[in-house]
């Protein structure tokens, strides 16, 4: 191959290589967008498949007096959080469809005001979709002054579509310390 041919050959190769480079570089932002879109996608998929407890909706609220379901209340604090947190009643027995209100008692043991935020979970996890909370202290910030004690109510009913073999459900809350988070924002 003569040197003139070689020069042209190399130039053509470099041109092609540059076009390939741009195509490949395009994959990087596409995959970054894909990664970031996992967050809304995850929510969408859960909603469509009905996996997430918090998104389920029901219509039938009639009381089914033929069944009694024991609901246990559990209270947890995230590591190192200086609150005392416990249910006023350890458990209640309810008919599906009946609206019930229970209280959790929270005390701030710290010598200053602190803010917490509670996140619920259910045992078994599938029970969440039948557990309808009408009002709840969870997911919103709760600020307690030093030494303050407060009763926090939860109003709920159990969906009477709940499978017949369920006899007991546990509702569990975990309080996270978000005092610093609040100061930051």
């Amino acid at each position, binding site marked *: 191959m003569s040197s003139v041919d*070689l020069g042209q050959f190399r130039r053509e190769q470099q041109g092609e290589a540059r076009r390939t480079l741009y195509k490949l570089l395009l*994959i990087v932002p596409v995959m*970054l967008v894909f990664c970031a879109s*996992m*967050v809304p996608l995850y929510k969408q998929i859960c909603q469509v*498949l009905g996996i997430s407890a918090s998104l389920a909706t029901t219509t039938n609220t009639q009381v089914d007096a033929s069944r009694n379901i024991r609901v246990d209340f559990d209270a947890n604090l995230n590591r190192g959080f200086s609150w005392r947190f416990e249910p006023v009643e350890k458990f209640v027995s309810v008919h599906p469809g009946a609206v019930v209100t229970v209280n959790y008692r929270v005390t701030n043991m710290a010598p200053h005001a602190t803010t917490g*935020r509670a996140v619920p979970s259910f045992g078994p996890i599938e029970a969440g979709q039948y557990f309808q909370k009408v009002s709840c202290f969870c997911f919103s910030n709760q600020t307690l002054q030093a030494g303050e004690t407060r009763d926090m109510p939860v109003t709920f009913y159990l969906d009477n579509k709940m499978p017949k073999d369920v006899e007991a459900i546990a509702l569990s809350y975990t309080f996270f310390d978000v005092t610093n988070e609040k100061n930051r924002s």
Partner: protein
Amino acid sequence: MAHDAAHDHGHDHHDHGPGPWTRIFTTTNHKDIGSMYLWFAFFMFFVGGAMALVLRAELFVPGLQVVQPEIFNSLTTVHALVMIFGAVMPAFVGFANWLIPMQIGAADMAFPRMNNWSFWIMIPAALLLFGSFLVPGGAAASGWTLYPPLVTQGGIGTDMTIFAIHLLGASSIMGSINIITTILNLRAPGMTLMRMPLFCWTWLITAYLLIATMPVLAGAVTMLLTDRHFGTSFFNAAGGGDPTMFMHIFWFFGHPEVYILILPAFGIVSQIIPAFARKPLFGYASMVYATASIAILSFIVWGHHMFTVGMPAAGNLFFMFATMLIAVPTGVKIFNWIATMWRGSLTFETPMLFCIGFLCMFTLGGFSGLVLSIAAVDITLHNTYYVVAHFHYVLFPGAIWGLTAAVYFWLPKFTGKMYDETLGKWHFWISAIAFNITFFPQHFLGLAGMPRRIPDYALQFTEWNTISTVGAFLLGFSQLIFLWNVVKTIRSGEKAKDKQWEGADSVEWTHLPSPVPYHTFETVPNLKLAAPAH
């Protein structure tokens, strides 16, 4: 560098090239960069190995003797990151740099300056990773998977690890773009895609995996960073986030990553076995398609790392069957390698020994992988030493022995000097025996329920742990033979032949002398007749 400043206006010795120190920073030659990648990987391999030996020393007997639990956790984390991102991946990129341009008849990589940059960007990443041991709170201690919420509680060392991963990811993406472009655009006339050596093929597919998954990892660790410092709640339950989502994103990267660590080794083995069987590779086309199938399937099996997080049964079943499906193309490959050896004129030089070792031990690792793919079984074996044994069986005899075989096979071509065959055989047999002493007992420990990543253990696990530690130190020693052999070859090896291996048929053996000149294929070769026919 001072020397260069003094001669700022005296660039009249162009034919001498820059001095050795300037050269390593400014070189754009694919052979120089390949060598730098390989030495970097070799160094990181010994550092990562030393960390593993500290872990094994701690586990020699129950109780805490050598290190505190915090250090143990950091060492577990950094051992994995160093071995994956510092040793195995750069070593494969090093071979890609050396071999791909020569095997396809190109003068250099497509983007030589980007090539230099993708090497040098790894150095600050390595410094960040090692420097994180010195900062308050120590290095990241969450395991290389960086699961929240543990990882969000770490100190500044965790942030340094996240930045190191960003840099390594950028380096891998640039390296991959270079490799794909080189293969697609710079092949000499006659070197059609389906005549390329398999090392080029497996790297082409690996590079696509890297470009597709590295941005996902970068995104995931960036979300960790904003969760840690900017008040976001991607994975923070207190703000309505979900730690499980991190696992989904991480393993969407993580599972293709394990094939990134093994596919180039498949390519290496597919070239070395035919050379010593003196037969062309059996089923060349099926090898290419099997590699591509493995790569595609690797994107839909991530859930098998998370069978215990409470996915719906349908999800577990899907991931279980998709995972088992990967055994089919992998089985095709194993079959083809055995069929290549069948009725071949076999000889057992060191590279071939490592390839046969690869074949036996990697298959064993594959079988324990199949056991773990069964969702119901995985629930008991999850996070036990059985998993540790499994992935070391696929990574050490898989990735590391593939690389070791490649070093012995191509060192005569790169340096023009022959390695010491006796030392090579010692290296193989000691590491083969030591490897099995180290990792086979870990299957028993896992089945008996010993959890991984814990610095202490219950008394009934003592015997197998002690044996495993003895094996680990022997394995570490056997790698020193490797280092010695490589150094000895470079300093005083006997002269190698241009075509050192009778059965080697790729272009670097048939068209180029040993050692290969600094510049090769400056004029475009015609490979229409020369390229190996499959």
